[in-house]
């Protein structure tokens, strides 16, 4: 294709997106669009799957049968999210094996929040309330993103995430209204998860690399700082309601902005975790790599069995 042809295709492509048309897997798309989407969508899929680990920690120790069932169901949902996000990513011409390779080799990222440890039962509440809460803020705008398979996956994912968010908040509420020990447990979890949750919404706008292009492709509709503000404004009253204190001495309602002012985020910590040196980066990666490597003989067996079965069928047909 000549450069001129490509330019005209790109122009048509941009116009389609501007008209709010969806781009489908078989449509022509610029290579950069494809790559950016593979990166962002697989990163999202990886986050769902790695995110199963910190919560999975508490399945065997959940305090009641009702909570155990709800936690299992939640983690199963996250696995489902991983599954349809991987499938959606595969429509861009990349295989699941390649995507796993990128995760296991450290080339692909996943949400840094999952590199923090889950130390008490209250962390199950804090994760649902704050982490799923922040994820929703990130993801709701993606329900209208330009790439069809991603947008459709997001609609389904977001419905379940808001259920998780309510469930997590309900865990926190129960603790906050419980015994002093339970309330302390809830407050401690909020103290540990609050700042990492704010970081989940991404670096400040001046440090964010992909924003402008992403806006055009509707991979992003608001800036990180806008999303963060939205998250804070939404979450502070929820903490107030159950009598928990946001661990930020600078947090203050700003009448003029009709928003909360908040304290400085420790971005050094953020970059430390992103670069692989958070409290659980190594454990999380090791768990994923182990599962994959120890599962190899199982996947090989399944493949060999399917081939044998196919052969037998063909022989029967002859």
């Amino acid at each position, binding site marked *: 294709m000549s450069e001129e042809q490509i330019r005209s295709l790109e122009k048509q492509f941009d116009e389609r997106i501007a008209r709010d048309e969806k781009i489908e897997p078989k449509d022509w798309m610029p290579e950069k669009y494809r790559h950016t989407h593979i990166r962002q969508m697989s990163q999202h899929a990886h986050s769902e799957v790695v995110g*199963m680990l910190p919560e999975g920690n508490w399945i065997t120790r959940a*305090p009641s049968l009702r909570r155990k069932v709800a936690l299992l169901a939640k983690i199963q949902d996250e696995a489902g999210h991983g599954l349809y996000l991987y499938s959606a990513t595969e429509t861009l011409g990349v295989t699941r094996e390649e995507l796993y390779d990128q995760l296991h080799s450290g080339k692909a990222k996943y949400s840094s929040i999952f590199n923090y440890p889950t130390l008490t039962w209250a962390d199950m509440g804090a994760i649902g309330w704050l982490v799923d809460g922040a994820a929703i803020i990130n993801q709701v705008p993606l329900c209208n993103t330009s790439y069809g398979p991603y947008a459709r996956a997001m609609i389904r994912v977001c419905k379940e995430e808001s259920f998780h968010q309510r469930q997590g908040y309900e865990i926190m509420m129960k603790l906050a209204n419980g015994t002093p020990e339970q309330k302390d447990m809830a407050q401690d979890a909020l103290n540990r998860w609050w700042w990492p949750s704010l970081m989940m919404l991404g670096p400040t706008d001046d440090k964010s690399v992909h924003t402008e292009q992403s806006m055009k492709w509707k991979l992003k509709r608001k800036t990180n700082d806008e999303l963060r503000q939205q998250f804070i404004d939404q979450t502070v009253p929820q903490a107030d309601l159950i009598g928990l204190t946001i661990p930020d001495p600078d947090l203050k309602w700003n009448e003029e902005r009709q928003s909360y002012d908040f304290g400085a985020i420790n971005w050094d910590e953020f970059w430390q975790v992103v670069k692989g040196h958070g409290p659980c980066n190594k454990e999380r990666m090791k768990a994923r790599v182990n599962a994959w490597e120890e599962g190899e*003989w*199982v996947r090989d067996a399944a493949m060999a069995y399917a081939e044998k079965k196919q052969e037998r069928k063909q022989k029967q047909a002859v």
Partner: protein
Amino acid sequence: MKNENLYNYILGIADNSLILGQRMGELCGHGPSLETDIACTNISLDLFGQVRSYFQYAAKIAGDKRTEDDIAMLRKEREYKNVLLVEQPNTNFAYSIGRQFLFDVYHLAFLTELQKSSDLTLSAIANKCVKEVSYHERFSSDWVKRLGDGTEESNQKMQEAINDLWTYTDELFHQTPADIAMVTEGVGVDVTKLKEKYYKQVSELLQEANLEVPESKWFQKGGKEGIHTEHLGYLLSDLQYMQRTYPNMEW
């Protein structure tokens, strides 16, 4: 307790689901593929759902303040009545599948009979569970076939798991005094009558899966009387951790 036999009978059924559910829950996030992870979590989820129905009923029969969670999480090790088979660890995926398969075939046959119980609550629970468990049985049978008839390595691993777990199968068909009392009343299932069909069905599937049916006639039992393998204590320390550390609280 007025209905002690019925209470113990329900615990005997439910503890199998409780302990197996706990074992399957351990796998979540660590399985060989996302699809098997989802399936194993789903089995765990079903089993705990069943446990809740049984223990809610048992709590009602007990008629005191105890709750489903007290029954599930606050008994002593010797008071758990599950068979030894379900407490065996997730040594590798073949063991998890083998354990599931050897239990599912029994479980499905058992629930099918329990649907006829003269106790309407039990028959209703069985009726609900039978659908779930027939899915479990299909899942675990399919995987026994895949692993048995897959590669040389998977065949070896599956065979080893079956050989090791085989010793725990006979216990499924032993009766406790509560079992016998409940069978007499038309409430319980006579498990001795399930045995022949069980071994026939299991053997046929193993053969289809290119696996040998173990010939050993040495069996282990004791779980139904609360004499467990060493594995159970560790499982219970996880299961009971919160209830023991923070007694008398609501979650």
